[in-house]
């Protein structure tokens, strides 16, 4: 069972080790850039959705609804072919980050909007009563409370984004799925290799969801 001969599973993994490890790093890197950019942009858009003047609100609302109504795969193709068509040379990696990041931002915006609106009006009124202006009110009163509400759905979104990075294999980013496909094309060990890849994703995402579940329990006392 634990043989490293050519033609056994472990042997084939050993042969493909550099490709697979690079691919794993790419997957992690993609997820990182997507989640960070999506979260920052999404938080900003979420605040705009609640507090901005109506033209901005309308604009962001349209953006969010359009992004949420289109499959990620279509967005990816749109960016990938669209940018190339304008002779803007962006690698598949970065056009993928932009496409999925934009998608992530839309989801985050909705989450942040919901969290902010779920903070009781009394908090804002109390902050106003002690003379806080808009920015400190948001920064010291509303956002710290909203952040705790955001955590569980944020983790869900993060898991979805890690899963969405596999779609970039279709436009040729060599992440874990594509590297696995390449290895399978060489040795035809379909079941073993795909199960191994699935296990890797499972480990990443299950860890994320457990962290989310922990934080959810941790902040469960925050009930109004």
């Amino acid at each position, binding site marked *: 069972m634990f043989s490293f001969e050519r033609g056994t599973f472990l042997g084939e993994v050993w042969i493909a080790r550099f490709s697979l490890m690079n691919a794993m790093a790419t997957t992690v890197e993609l997820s990182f850039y997507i989640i960070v950019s999506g979260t920052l942009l999404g938080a900003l858009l979420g605040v705009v959705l609640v507090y901005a003047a109506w033209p901005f609100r309308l604009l962001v609302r349209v953006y969010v609804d359009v992004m949420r109504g289109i499959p*990620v795969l279509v967005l990816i193709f749109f960016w990938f*072919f669209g940018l190339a068509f304008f002779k803007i040379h962006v690698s598949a990696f970065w056009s993928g980050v932009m496409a999925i990041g934009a998608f992530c931002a839309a989801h985050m915006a909705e989450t942040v909007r919901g969290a902010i609106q779920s903070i009781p009006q009394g908090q804002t009124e109390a902050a106003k009563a002690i003379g806080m202006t808009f920015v400190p009110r948001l920064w010291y009163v509303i956002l710290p409370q909203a952040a705790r509400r955001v955590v569980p759905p944020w983790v869900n979104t993060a898991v979805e984004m890690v899963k969405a*990075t596999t779609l970039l294999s279709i436009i040729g980013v060599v992440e874990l799925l594509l590297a696995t496909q390449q290895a399978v094309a060489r040795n035809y060990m379909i079941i073993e290799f*795909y199960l191994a890849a699935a296990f890797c994703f499972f480990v990443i995402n299950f860890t994320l969801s457990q962290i989310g579940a922990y934080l959810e329990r941790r902040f469960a006392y925050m009930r109004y």
Partner: protein
Amino acid sequence: MIAYQFNWSVIWRNMDAFLHGLALGLGLAVVSLLLGCVIGLACAFARTSRIKWLDWPVWLYVEFIRNTPLLLLIIFVYFGLPQMGVYGLDKIESFVLTLTLYAGAYMCEVFRTGLASMPNQYREAAKAIGLTPWQRQRYVVLPVMFRITLPAVSNNLISLFKDTSLAAAIAVPELTFTARQVNANTFRVFEVWITASVLYLAASYVIAFGLRQVERRYASVR
């Protein structure tokens, strides 16, 4: 920046293919949702029942599916099943199988929270008027749970519909696949992807609107 000349005639010429793709995607989503509901319901009851050995296999199934990329599952089922000696599934059947398993895991979570959030008084009241266990489930627990979970179910339908775009990876001729082909044949990049996006958006909105009417009709009783 180059001046881009829009040419929509390509789209009109291929409109049939686009609409066929859209209809196929909707069909795949609905079938998978219905089958997934059956699996999800069974799994939810298995997890809430007092039978311990049913609990962890179902837990493993749900967590595995929910934490693995759908594209990986699609490719695994499509290429892996024949190697395990299961032949005779064409690409559409294999995709429906995958999406059903995927939907089942999500529906299991939905129904499980639905069962958990159901006030216990309903069960007690049903017991008090002398319904048998089967009747309690059939006439009290299930209808109330469906009402509670209806919004979550309709959200799942929409996201399943969007997930059917992944079937393009195994050449199921749904909307994304069609768009990709028309794109490759004609290179009318913007027209093609704008059309695909608009069709997806319109379909999602129509589904969302329709389901909101259903939700209003059968609003959850609290």
